């Protein structure tokens, strides 16, 4: 089948086919400047404020058409979605939410509770809250797991960590969330004729998109073979999945990739690339590379809540709706939040290329230096495998602000103890420790791990191990923390881990929504 030379999507129920240089613009610019839909605001242009939040319906080919409630529409940051990332999507903006020309139940709750002051953040809150209302109707918590959130207020906060407001102090917005009349709220999916939108989008969906304009080339493959074929011919093409890293670098750091491969259509057409399954025989979780962090979070909330806890403070719902685990791994940052866990869990990365087929790399062999990966220019990450164990697991993220902040320091511990007689101090059988934010890559602390084996699980031991960590690392100072701060954290995190996992520990884990 030949290639399409346009991306195909819907905005508020209207069809758009965009080709040429116009696809190299952000969705927010397209909405504001081409469509004059100025309700969507741009404040930061890097995913960090939520003012540009719009709703996206991205559907798997296998899915039945959505109607009524159900976690169908997801909020994403339009400022870091380029048009080549939204092929096959239905976008709904703040202008597209009114039912019969009247404001909906979310909007009227925000009016009644004074949830808007200057109003600049408001459209972003409204769209995000409509996704929340739709999820609440379906009995799904913000993290995507079924109806397990502690209370409604927590659920509302969880849904809105990606939206900043400088005026209200949020109290009124939380009140508005509580006041949404879910009985009268009409899910966004009911406002549009999704069946015909679906039909129209299906018609182009088997065709890959190839657009060359202004000395740039973007390819949106419809299937994995086309993707690998393209990479074979264009090694080093910039792969864009959620774009929550790449698009920020384009907007803010002068990145201007000549050749782009966008995985958005792939993620709709190839279910294996978005599936998360537990292989019970090997007790291993197999994660499709293109599944959203939101799905990963929901899955691990059931199986490894400690990892879900880290994902809970990973970016924001908007970032997790768009971003992928593969993107976090391939981004290669030493402060990538998923990495310490993947290191101590002993994850493997599955990569594929046309020339060499598939191969697997252990995560700690994957990083060779600052942003240097064991990933050939013609390779695509297709999956991540995470073995599950019964060890004591603790993951830590330290950032200036708890939510929507990049880490200054991260740590992961996986510990198993020798069975001991009642009352005796347990002895360490096996330990794996990884620290992030202290070097050019996440570090497995092998010396510490080896030293720990056979030591008693007591305060003295962990103090010794903490001192070892402090002297083993050589962190830098930057805006996210001074060197001494990171050294102190590396030292202290061992004490903290000990107190949280020993009998004497008095530290309860902070509650999370799941």
């Amino acid at each position, binding site marked *: 089948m030949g290639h399409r030379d346009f991306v195909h999507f819907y905005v508020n129920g209207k069809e758009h086919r965009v080709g040429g240089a116009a696809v190299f613009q952000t969705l927010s610019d397209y909405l504001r*400047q081409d469509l004059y839909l100025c*309700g969507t*605001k741009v*404040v930061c242009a*890097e995913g*960090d*404020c939520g003012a540009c939040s719009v709703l996206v319906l991205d559907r798997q080919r296998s899915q039945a058409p959505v109607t009524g409630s159900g976690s169908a529409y997801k909020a994403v940051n339009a400022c870091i979605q380029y048009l080549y990332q939204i092929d096959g999507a239905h976008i709904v*903006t*703040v*202008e597209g939410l009114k039912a019969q020309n009247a*404001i909906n139940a*979310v*909007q009227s709750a*925000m*009016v*009644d509770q*004074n949830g*808007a*002051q*200057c*109003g*600049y953040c*408001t459209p972003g809150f*409204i769209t995000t809250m409509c996704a929340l209302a739709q999820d609440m109707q379906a009995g799904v918590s913000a993290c995507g797991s079924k109806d397990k959130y502690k209370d409604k207020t927590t659920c509302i906060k969880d849904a809105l*960590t990606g*939206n*900043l*407001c*400088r*005026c*209200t*102090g*949020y*109290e*009124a917005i*939380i009140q508005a969330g509580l006041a949404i009349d879910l009985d009268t709220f009409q899910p966004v999916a009911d406002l549009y004729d999704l069946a015909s939108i679906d039909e129209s989008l299906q018609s182009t969906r088997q065709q890959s998109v190839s657009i060359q304009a202004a000395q740039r080339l973007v390819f949106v493959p419809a299937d994995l073979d086309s993707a690998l074929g393209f990479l074979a011919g264009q090694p080093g093409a910039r792969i864009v999945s959620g774009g929550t890293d790449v698009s920020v670098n384009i907007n803010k750091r002068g990145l201007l990739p000549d050749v782009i491969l966008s995985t958005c259509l792939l993620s709709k057409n190839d279910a294996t690339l978005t599936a998360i399954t537990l292989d019970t025989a090997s007790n291993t979780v197999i994660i499709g590379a293109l599944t959203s962090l939101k799905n990963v979070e929901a899955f691990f909330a059931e199986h490894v809540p400690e990892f879900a806890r880290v994902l809970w403070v990973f970016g924001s719902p908007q970032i997790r709706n768009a971003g992928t685990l593969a993107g976090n791994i391939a981004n290669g940052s030493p402060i990538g939040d998923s990495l310490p866990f993947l290191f101590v869990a002993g994850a493997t990365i599955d990569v594929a290329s046309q020339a060499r087929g598939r191969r697997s790399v252990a995560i700690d062999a994957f990083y060779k230096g600052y942003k240097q990966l064991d990933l050939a220019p013609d390779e695509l990450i297709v999956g991540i495998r995470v073995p599950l164990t019964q060890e004591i697991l603790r993951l*830590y993220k*330290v950032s*200036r*602000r*708890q*939510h929507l*902040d990049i880490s*200054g320091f991260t740590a992961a511990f996986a510990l198993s103890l020798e069975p001991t007689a009642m009352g005796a101090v347990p002895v360490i059988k096996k330990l794996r420790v990884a620290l992030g934010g202290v070097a050019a890559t996440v570090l497995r602390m092998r010396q510490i791990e080896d030293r720990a084996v056979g030591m008693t699980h007591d305060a003295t031991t962990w103090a010794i191990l903490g001192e070892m960590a402090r002297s083993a690392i050589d962190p830098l100072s*930057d*805006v*996210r923390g*001074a*060197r*001494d*701060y990171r050294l*102190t*954290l590396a030292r*202290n*995190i061992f004490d903290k881990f000990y*107190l949280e996992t020993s009998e*004497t*520990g*008095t*530290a309860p884990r902070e509650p999370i929504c799941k």
Partner: protein
Amino acid sequence: MQIGHKTPKNPNIPHDSAIGHVSGTSVYIDDMPPAHNEVFVEIVPSPVAFGRIRSIDTSKALAVPGFVGAYTYRDLHHNKFGPITQDEILMAEDTVYFIGQAVVVVAAESRSAALAARRAVVLDIEELDPCLTVAEAIRRDQYLDRTYAIKRGDVEAAFAEADHIIEGHFSIAGADHFYLESQACIVYPQEYDQIVIHSSTQNPSEIQHVAAHLLGLNLNQVVVITKRMGGGFGGKECQSTHPAVMAAMVALKTRRPARLIYNKDDDMQWTGKRHPFENDYKVSFTDAGVITALQARLYADGGAYNDLSTAVVGRALTHIDNAYFLPNADVVGKIARTNFPPNTAFRGFGGPQGIITIENICEEIAAYLGMDAYDVRRANLYGVDERNTTHYGQLVANNTLPELFDTLLESSQYRERRATIDGFNQSSLTHLRGMAMTAVKFGISFTNKALNQANALVNIYLDGTIQVSTGATEMGQGVNTNIKMLVAEEFGIDYDKVIVMATSTEKNNNTSATAASAATDLNGSAAVNASRKLKERIAEVVAQHFASTETGMGAYPDRIVFADGYIYDSRKPSRRITFAEAVNLSYRERVSLGERGHYATSGIGFDWSLGQGAPFLYYTNGCAVSEVEIDRFTGDMRVLRTDILMDIGQSINPGLNRGQIVGAFVQGMGWLTTEDLRYTRNGALLTHSPTTYKIPNIYDLPATFICNTIQNDNKVNVRGTKAVGEPPLVLGISVWAAVKNALSYVSGESIPTLNTPACNEEILSRLTYYKRLLERQDNNNHAFNEGFYHDEASVLLPRARSHAAGRAVRSNLSGKRARSKSGKADKGVTA
């Protein structure tokens, strides 16, 4: 004549733009559709903090497709301006004084072309040695404006007799306004060199004045219109002027509409912040914790130009007492000239920096005496009948502070919770808690007397609907809603019959900035005055209409009542006409149905040559208790609970006021906790976007949040109300003070010190310090008393080091005075 009116039912109506906001239809500057021949404007800023311009090369910009023009200061008529002292240069001439100062302005056919042209301009600048700290400015002896001082009594005598003295140094960090809508304007050229400027500004008249002056126009050639702002917080009081004038220059040069929109990164790097302060203080007090004298030297970092720094320092000096009586005071303020963007107004306007100084002192006295800081504060609180004049001589009238303190102590269960915290800190190995109650007594009125006036235009139309125009600008605070309600209530008509129009210098001339929390006070009063004049005229007509020889009812306008949309004579309410009918009657009688109202605050004044006077019409009061929990290993902090109690008089719209209180509190908390402005050693801001500059997030709201007001009728102000915009920001200090209180549980014999912002890094640095101090107990313990930033390899500007300044040590609790080792507070400045 007092014509009656009745107040309608529910005053909690939504913000007048609420429906537009939630629908995405409210129009902000950059949402205005582009005119077909519009040009886009970009600024080429100075990349260095201080330097001499060797050359400017625009040749490559000229080659950019779509390039329209490039302009420098030579294209301006004048280049110097300033709201208080006229020391500011709009566009650099031969020298640049801060990063972000405009050097060249470019215009192009599209946004992308303008950006490309901006990037193509090559500046060759010889870097000079910038002044990037207050300490360095003091060393270089470079100040803006003169020194300001307030004195009462004899501090030296009080010090000589004192039971105890503490002295120290306190560093207060700045903060970015982080209004979501960055600076923005569009300018439309008109006939005969007239221009219309649409600006996101709190101060249309200021833009009008500066634009006219710098572009060589008369004031009547410049119209400035502000529909609304996507947040202001003081940041658009003076600094929206710069883009507006530069865009206006382009509009006049090109004869085309010109649009200039800052992006967030540029905005944060180029515009001024809340003033950082470096304060030295010395305080004496009795065994019971009663302050006998305060000496303080406040050094504000003014940045490169004065902007509003004079007034900011003035407010810091008049607020350093906060809620506490200072029998002897000697406070002096100076403005350091540094190479940062001119620091500017920010909600509270120097008040918070003065107030946190004394709140910090209260915590220190408590830690020193081993008292609960609540008791120290209560012992020093302004009295109702005595100890009730400020250090600048104003009577603290209608003083609700004691009532607020006593009520909140009970309702927050302060004492019980204190006992719980004591126990928790004893037993928890992992966490540490702290709690503090702090206060606010915020003076309302501009300290510059002339600004305390306003005018309003009220036009009544024949269908009985009304348009009101005032100088107040809407930035989300709800001033338009308040004014609409005041006017509707005057006429006894439904709120939705009144619209408050976009602010325009065409309708309201010579207006004051929407600032000092006084917009509703001043503009609302002016609108009420205009309404009352109209009511008088309508009442005359209606009285005539109702007068009848048959019933023997004479025409008495005094008896005419405006209520529920009707007008009637109070003697015969059944015979009534609608407001619209009354308006029509008046029209037919050829009575004017439009009116201007003027208002000037009476009875205020201040003389800086004496440092004495009564600058404020009244005070808005409040207090807050916050409790925090700190992770002992990471320094992570969260606010468990905050209780706020305020006296805001009679509320016009309680719902909007609550939004002001909560929003301001959270903003104050952000300033003192997570908002960490960090600069390179060359003075470049590193935290110039929300990625690294962390304003509070929804999860940072205290887990339990209780906010109440007390009943009080503020007779001196319109409808018994009190201003509420700024005062609650100050209550964010309770969070910071609670952290300091938590540290006192682990600081042994030392009074704990804490910088602002108390982010996790700062907190962990203090925890680590006290841990080592207690572990070592050696003589040389100040060697590591510097926080984490003593690292020479660091690329960052070292943070201020208040820690190193030393403090009184709780060495002798039996009543002997303790002295700090440094004696730093004494170096002082002379007035």
